[in-house]
């Protein structure tokens, strides 16, 4: 059996009365890329945001079931959300750098967690920007506002910002959907570079992207997981007719 970092069992979530995720079971292998695919509104983002408890800010959100990170239930009362989000980072669909300098964007998570050592911050900011393949483009303008970067650069900055706090898991919600093809390629290359060190869960509407970047895939439909497993298997010989219809584009 593989090394599983996240174990989801019997997960049901609700916004008020509307039942979004239904009896979801999913194991996420450590240090590999898992993609989540499925039509719009099927609950992919809700699933992702359950894993770092971002849904907690929505008052109507309710959750039942088990969500284990390294064997520990993340919704237990003794779990500190701050620690959880340090371990489980998130990159959003629309690049959302803070209106601060490039340096301060990457240093943000470290500062928030109490690191104010200038030398150490400089070192970590540089390392994260290099890891996110952005260093060469920004090393001469670290004090400039991050809002002046291109969309693709902003998204890599957001990835650098997330990596700076050294998470174990990175959740990516359609990280390339607002980007041009060249920036998309850069992000995909980045994911390849990171996949052995981090556990990455990526939501994508792009089937080619799923096959290019991920080892595992889960197909969501109306809040249920229809099929899951090795990406190659799912894309070459899906077991369920609905999966086949979706990946071949024969789907409303």
């Amino acid at each position, binding site marked *: 059996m593989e090394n599983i970092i996240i174990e989801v069992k019997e997960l049901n979530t609700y916004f008020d009365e509307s039942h979004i995720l239904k009896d979801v079971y999913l194991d996420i292998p450590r240090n590999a890329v898992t993609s989540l695919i499925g039509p719009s509104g099927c609950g992919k983002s809700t699933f992702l945001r359950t894993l770092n408890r971002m849904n907690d800010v929505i008052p109507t959100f309710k959750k039942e079931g088990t969500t284990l990170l390294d064997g520990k239930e993340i919704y237990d009362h003794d779990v500190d959300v701050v620690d959880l989000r*340090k371990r489980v980072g998130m990159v959003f669909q629309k690049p959302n750098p803070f*209106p601060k300098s490039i340096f301060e964007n990457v240093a943000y998570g470290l500062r928030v967690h109490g690191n104010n050592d200038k030398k150490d911050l400089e070192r970590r900011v540089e390392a994260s920007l290099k890891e996110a393949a952005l260093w060469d483009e920004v090393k001469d303008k670290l004090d400039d506002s991050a809002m002046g970067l291109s969309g693709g650069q902003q998204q890599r900055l957001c990835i650098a910002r997330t990596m700076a706090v050294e998470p174990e898991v990175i959740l990516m919600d359609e990280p390339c959907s607002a980007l041009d093809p060249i920036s998309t390629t850069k992000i995909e290359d980045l994911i390849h570079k990171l996949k052995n060190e981090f556990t990455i869960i990526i939501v994508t509407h792009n089937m080619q992207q799923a096959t290019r970047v991920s080892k595992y895939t889960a197909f969501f439909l109306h809040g249920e997981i229809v099929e899951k497993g090795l990406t190659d298997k799912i894309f070459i010989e899906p077991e369920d007719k609905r999966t086949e219809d979706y990946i071949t584009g024969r789907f409303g």
Partner: protein
Amino acid sequence: MISMPRIISPHHAQKIMNVVLWGVGFLAIVILIIIIGYILYNGLPQFSLEFIFGNPVGSGESGGIWPMIVSTFYVTFIALIVATPLGVLAAIWLAEYAGESNLVKAIRFAAETLASIPSIVFGLFGLTFFVVFLQMGFSVLSGGLTLALMAIPTILRTAEVSIEAVPQSYKEGSLALGASKWQTIYRVVIPAAIPGITTGIILGMARAIEETAAILYTVGAALAIPMSIWDPARPLPLHLYILATEGVSLPNAYGTAAVLVLIILIITISTNYLVEKYTKKMMGR
């Protein structure tokens, strides 16, 4: 599509509206320039070192207005250091913590009502509450606190609107990095809202600095430089009011008005410049 008979084409309507809007904007600027120009035209000839830095002689027929300039800054400063933290903290609470209860609606309604109460009513309240009840007497403190009450709703409303305008995506980005709600507010939300908050403070200050009625009953009318917050004082608008209504000296009234106008112009223009510089730095270009 069913096409409706039209009186004028959208293209023409657009053109007409352009002319109207430009015209209205232009008119507003012209009126402003005429008023400021008229005051400066009549007031600037009074300017001299003695007028700005001297003490008044008699009740202001001649001599200078230095004590009034000092009084103005003193009273306005008191108003701002009281009103800014209260207004901004209340705005943060309303925008980020309060939710939508009936109590919150009542508070918002109260703030809006407060903003539209005539200033003379604030003056009367200041007289009965600060001057008499709290025994602060006619003083810089009574006047400053009365002005603070007037400025709070302005600061609160502008700050609340600009805090609410900060995109949700900034907050989510911060929370996702493990920041607490309060860290998110003071590290991301407030810096992003600073231009709006500053504008609110300046609006509140402008309201305080040129206010006459609210200080008429609270600050006294002393001609000497106030040495402490317990001393009575005579800010510029009050001096102007007395000079003009009691027929002391019309030229000096214009001179005083010109000083007041210049102070306000300098403060607004320089803050505008700083806010723009800050925004540029924050948003890059």
